[in-house]
């Protein structure tokens, strides 16, 4: 095991994938000499050369469309979108081409494209640099969507995403880039848990807390705080949000009877809405209380000085835990 930051773990994942398969290319803005604005591609240009580490013109649709063409040709492009809020110009190529070409061609053409997106807030960034657009991609059939929460998963799941013959949107929480963790760099990829499996990050008996990405760390803090209060929270790191591992999710909810979902993204028609709808369909008779969502507000991402009021923090999570436990909370006496 090796201590690595998440940024370094992703870098090592790219390096390994490129070493394992000569068809793997990385492409994006500033990913060559600079090593990417977050240094995720640091050293790859020197090691693999400009034919495989491609600094592109500043045009996200162009990057994505060119990746489609490279995939047509048998390559496995790994596209870096510089920031979450910059992915929208590529949206048409992702939705109409990347996601649909395998279906359109009746399986004759595969799109093994990995779309890496430095993602979400909490880093005091300028507008368009802190967004959580994952629901758009979860809603798009043909894509797989994952969100990593720790260096080990970041390393393994990136390699799994690149090895997948389906397109994968891979969300990297910016505020965890410098968080360290143990990474097993030697383990065989075949022995790793499949990309689509959720992970019980902490076992508990009273409330199931579903989350993914950087919010896993906040959820774990909330669970620790709740323990002092005599409440046992089971935290599930979904890892994959398309598909969702409902086997793991429902097993937990059937045990606890109470469920809270938390994510940074806005609430309306978000991933939490889908999770709660699906959990309710599957576990209605096991539920002891109405499920609760703890999400970003339904607002454009606010200015950095105000983001702490937007991001669902430990206290907001515990407030929702109180709600599902029918203990006094911010909504006590409020008609929704």
């Amino acid at each position, binding site marked *: 095991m090796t201590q690595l930051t998440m940024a370094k773990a992703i870098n090592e994942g790219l390096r390994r994938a490129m070493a394992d398969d000569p068809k793997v*290319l990385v492409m994006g803005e500033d990913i060559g000499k600079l090593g990417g604005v977050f240094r995720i591609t640091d050293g790859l240009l020197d090691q693999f050369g400009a*034919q*495989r580490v*491609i600094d*592109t*013109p500043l*045009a996200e*649709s*162009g990057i*994505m*469309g*060119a*990746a*489609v*063409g*490279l*995939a*047509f*040709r*048998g*390559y496995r*492009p790994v596209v870096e979108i510089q920031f979450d809020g910059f992915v929208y*110009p590529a949206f*048409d*190529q992702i939705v*109409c*081409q990347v996601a649909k*070409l*395998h*279906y*359109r*061609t*009746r*399986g*004759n*053409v*595969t799109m093994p494209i990995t779309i890496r997106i430095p993602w979400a807030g909490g880093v005091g960034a300028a507008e368009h640099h802190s967004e959580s657009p994952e629901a758009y991609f979860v809603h798009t*059939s*043909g894509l*797989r969507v994952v969100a990593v929460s720790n260096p080990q998963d970041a390393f393994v799941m990136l390699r799994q995403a690149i090895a*997948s*013959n*389906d397109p994968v949107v891979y969300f990297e929480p910016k505020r965890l880039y410098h968080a360290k963790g143990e990474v097993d760099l030697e383990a065989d990829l075949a022995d790793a848990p499949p990309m*689509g499996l959720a992970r019980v990050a902490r076992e508990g008996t009273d409330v199931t807390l579903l989350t993914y990405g950087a919010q896993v760390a906040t959820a774990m803090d909330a669970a620790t705080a709740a323990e002092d209060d005599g409440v046992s929270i089971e935290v599930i790191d979904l890892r994959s949000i*398309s*598909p*969702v*591992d*409902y*086997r793991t999710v429902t097993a937990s909810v059937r045990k606890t009877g109470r469920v809270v979902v938390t994510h940074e993204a806005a609430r309306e028609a978000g991933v939490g809405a889908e999770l709660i709808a699906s959990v309710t369909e599957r576990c209605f008779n096991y539920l002891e209380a109405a499920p609760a969502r703890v999400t970003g507000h339904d607002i454009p991402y606010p200015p950095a000085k105000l983001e702490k009021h937007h991001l669902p923090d430990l206290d907001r999570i515990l407030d929702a835990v109180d709600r599902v436990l029918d203990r006094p909370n911010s909504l006590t006496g409020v008609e929704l």
Partner: protein
Amino acid sequence: MTHTLNPLADLATDTDDVARLLTPDGERIADPDLERWVADVDTAMLQSLYRDMVLVRRIDTEGVALQRQGQLGLWAPCQGQEATQIGTARAFRADDFVFPSYREIGVNYVRGAKPADFVIAWRGEEHSTYNPYDINTATPQIIIGAQSLHAVGYAMGIQRDGTDQVSAAYFGDGASSQGDVNEALVFASSFRAPVVFVCTNNQWAISEPVAVQGRFPIAGRAPGFGIPSMRVDGNDVLACLAAMRWALENARRGNGPAFIEAVTYRMGPHTTSDDPTRYRDKDEVERWRRRDPIARVEALLRAEGGFDDAFAAEVAADADRLGAEVRAATLGATSREPIGVFDHVYEEPHSGLDEQRTWFAAYLDGFGGEEAAR
């Protein structure tokens, strides 16, 4: 009120400012840029080009008829554009890779598409039929201009593989306004990718005349991206063949991308759902009918002694045979089983979709086979 015409508007809509080798009357003329690229074209080759154009027009005629008879949901006619499509497509090598739009019937015919390949998608049975790798031609693209980037990416792959293949993208005058086409030109130029852009300027993007897309000839934009371009008479099959040979050779030699604007005319509606009488003059259509791409080759062939009744009858018989095959492929088409809607969404198992599929299969089974019969 005074009305000032932007002088540049004349440039965009001037359909005579084009390079050509064959006049609308079928007179063979010289062009210093194009001439050498078709020096080998003899009477037999001309006959072959003529034949391809007639056959493609027949596929198109059959397609329109099948739509009118309710056998196809839609059809996007290519009448008038046969020279652009056949002339450029005949310049390819089999191992070049083509990214067509939905109207490139003639291009796909040359690439090796079979009768069913022209109709099954328009009938709504499948989104595509042929395997793109069988004829090195992508599934026709419906999103305007999106395929231009795919062609560039494919060409970047060719560069990495070190072969002398070329990729090509076909799109229209309307697509020239799309960001994707402009980004494709930027990428192609930046990477010197071996890709050829063929802009079929058929004067109309549904109801919008080409002047709405720009006030300057489309071919004139490419040099600004660092890409050499040619503006040719798109109703002149020899000019189209010559220009495409130039562009492909340029790319094959490692000189990077090239751009061709083929100035032609969409004689029919945008699709069978369109009504062009609402937005364009009969006179304009008649003017273009006199510039018909097939008639001028026939005139040249007659002048060269390469067109007699026997040849005409032979081509007509081939066209009839192909038309009948297209019709048979349409009428003989079968639909996938209902559960087939789930096929190929993903290449690998997806627990969420697999669950829906399992449910839908059970739901269908509940009808005891009646659903399939419905």
